[in-house]
C-alpha cells in the first residue's frame, strides 16, 4: 500500500484495483457516495474498535474530568 499527500484533504491511499472494484459493487444503492467514503468509514470503525480495546476511548470519566477543568477556567457553567 502506498500513500501520497493530497493538498485539500490529508492523504490519498492507493488500494488494489480489484479491491476498489469490489467496494464499488458493494456501495451501489447505499449512502456511500464513493469508494473513498466507504474506506474512510470502515477504517474509522476499525480504529475506534482498537482504541476502545486498548482503553484509548474518550470515556465518560475523561469527559467529566475535562468539564471540571473547563469550569475551573470559566469556560463552562
Amino acid at each position: 500500500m502506498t500513500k501520497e499527500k493530497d493538498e485539500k484533504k490529508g492523504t490519498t491511499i492507493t488500494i488494489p484495483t480489484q479491491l476498489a472494484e469490489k467496494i464499488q459493487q458493494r456501495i451501489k444503492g447505499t449512502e456511500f457516495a464513493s469508494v473513498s467514503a466507504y474506506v474512510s468509514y470502515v477504517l474509522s470503525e476499525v480504529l475506534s474498535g482498537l482504541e476502545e480495546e486498548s482503553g484509548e476511548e474518550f470515556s465518560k470519566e475523561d469527559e467529566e474530568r475535562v468539564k471540571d477543568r473547563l469550569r475551573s477556567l470559566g469556560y463552562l457553567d
Partner: protein
Amino acid sequence: MKIDQSINYLVSGLERSGTSMMMQILAAGGIPIAYSESRPADEHNPKGYYELEGGKIINTLMQGRFPFEKYKGQFIKITAYGLLYLPQEKFKIIYMERNLDEVLDSMEKMARIKDQDREETKQSFRKLNEKIKKELQTKQNIDMLRINYNDLLKDATTHIHNICRFIGPYHFDTQKMVDVVDTQLYRQRRQ
C-alpha cells in the same frame, strides 16, 4: 474580496493552545472575526480572549441554540470540547495544537490550582484532542487545518501562508499577521 459567506469559520483547539493568538493573527490580516468584549484581557491573555458570550459559548452549543447563521463568513472561536456539538453545516476550522504539558501548565496557572491528578488530566485532554481530530477530519462538511503553536512560533511566515491558502482568495496583510506572533507570549515554553 470577501471570504465565502456560506461557510462558518472557526478557530479551535484545547484551551490555552494559542486559539486567542490565532484570532489576533486573523484580525491583523484583515480577515473578518467576531467576538464580544464580555471577557476582558487579563494577565493570562494580555491581548484579549476573542470569545463570544463571555467565553461560555460551550454552554450555548450544548443547548443547541448557538446562532451559527449569524456568523457565516467570519471567524469565531470555539474551543475543542465545543466541537462535539457542531451542527451538520459547512465549516472551515483552524485547529491549534500545542505541547500538552504547556497547555496544562497554563491552565493550572490560570485556574490557580495545582493538579494532584495531573497525569490523568493529561490523558483525558489527549484523548479529547484525538477524538476531535479523528472525527472531524473524516466529515465531508468540515475542512480542517491543524496548526502547531510551537511550530508557528518557530516559523510564522510558512504557517501564515498555509493559513491564507486554507482560507482561500482574500486580500491578506500577511506581514501584519506574522508580526502578531509575539514570542513574549510564549512564557511557558519547555525545550
